[in-house]
């Protein structure tokens, strides 16, 4: 499903975020990427979603070489990937409902059908009662859950999460990880970047460890 081979990423200015990274994640697998801050976890996720292009090697997602993908093809790759961000990236001038609606609007779903899906996604993350609320009115944990609802509403086959529990207290964090577990149980491939190697253990997931851009385990 996701396959890196000899991937390197050098940023302008010479900083090497990733070097010689090779691994494969099978469909339906759940894995955690851990490592110190600046080890290249975020960069790795960005390469999968074609937010960054690799400077060397190849990144293959769903059989497509992401690095060589045309600009016009990228949106269709991203529709199959749910992204969960540490800073949520919610739209603050839209209600919770509209935030989750956005991916379906972009994909061109029928509005009535979309509304049902949005409610189902909000229900899954426990925010069904708050669909009219604006993101400012939500707590940090609720915002993170809203972000997850937006990531899964389009039923992607891959879910990428960049430090999804970074700003949350232990109870909220456990809730979120439980959600990922249940998504994985229905067949979604999940890759979570986290500074804490214990997360993988808690999820019973495979652990990839990065150290200064190199994969050490």
């Amino acid at each position, binding site marked *: 499903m996701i396959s890196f081979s000899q991937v390197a990423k050098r940023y302008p200015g010479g900083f090497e975020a990733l070097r010689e990274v090779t691994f494969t994640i099978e469909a339906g697998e759940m894995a955690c990427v851990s490592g110190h801050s600046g080890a290249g976890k975020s960069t790795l996720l960005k390469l999968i979603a074609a937010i960054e292009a690799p400077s060397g090697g190849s990144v293959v997602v769903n059989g497509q070489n992401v690095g060589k993908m045309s600009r016009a093809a990228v949106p269709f790759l991203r529709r199959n990937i749910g992204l969960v961000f540490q800073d949520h*990236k919610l739209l603050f001038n839209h209600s919770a409902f509209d935030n989750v609606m956005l*991916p379906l609007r*972009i994909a061109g779903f*029928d509005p009535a059908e979309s509304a049902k899906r949005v409610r189902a996604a909000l229900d899954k993350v426990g925010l069904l009662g708050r669909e009219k609320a604006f993101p400012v009115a939500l707590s940090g944990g609720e915002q993170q859950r809203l972000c997850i609802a937006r990531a899964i509403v389009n039923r992607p086959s891959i879910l990428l999460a960049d430090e999804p529990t970074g700003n949350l207290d232990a109870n909220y964090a456990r809730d979120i990880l439980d959600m990922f577990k249940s998504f994985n149980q229905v067949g979604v491939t999940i890759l979570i970047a986290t500074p804490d190697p214990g997360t993988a253990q808690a999820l019973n997931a495979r652990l990839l460890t990065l150290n200064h851009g190199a994969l050490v385990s």
Partner: protein
Amino acid sequence: MNVWLTHHRLAFAQVLRQLAHTPFANLLTMLVIGVALSLPAGLYALLKNIDKLATQAHGEPQITLVLASSANAEAISDLQARLKSHREIAEFQFISRDQGLQELARNSGLSDVTAGLEKNPLPDVITVRPAARDPETVSRLHRELQQLPKVEAALIDEAWVKRLHALLGLGQQAVTILSALLGFALIVITGNTIRLQILSQRDEIEVSKLIGATDPFVRRPFLYHGAVQGCAGGAIAWLVVAAAFHLLNAGTDKLTDLYALNFHLTVPAGADILGLLLFATLLGWLGAYLSVSQHLREIEPR
């Protein structure tokens, strides 16, 4: 197809919401566009009115054939038969030299002078009314009639028609230049408002791209915004012209009374309004397109 329609409907609804969200700023931009467009639109409408006045005041163009003194009755009836069958002639009238003298005596009040003449100095004359009235056809007909046998001279009062047409042509050029200049201004104005729109929606664009929005999807609402803004500007331009003509008509009525002309400035209607709105809409769209194309690539998720 359905997806496409839904996308367009939603983009349009989004634009209307945005317009309603900041009505004052948007109205101001539309007013600026409207006033800018009202200049060429007004000048165009004015020229159209003058053109109408010109045909009305000038009436029909007329060619006067002066016949040679050697033309006898047979030659004249030959000539008349030829004129009758000519396709480009609507009407003609033969005025004999005696008739001409009588008319001159009657109309000019020179009966004393004409009575004192030993011999009628006037030639036989045929006045011809061409079927067409555009200067080119008329002057071609004029040259043709000049070649006819027993026609000594063909006179045409076309100098002032030509002058007027030249003047109107000049006015039309001015309209074209003004349209081009102010159309360019419209593109720039729209481009700038759209640029501000894009910047204010930077986050939304970035997030949309992250979750799979294509470039056309992101571009669409901005294009609609530009087009709606241009169209509204065109409508305002029409209102400005209509109001200005209404005010001017009070003045022209006095003037045309003095000249015994029936002239009233008519506000552009029908196809002209449609043309103005289309022109403004298209330029608004173009301005938005140029602006979006330039700025959209700058907003890539990092």
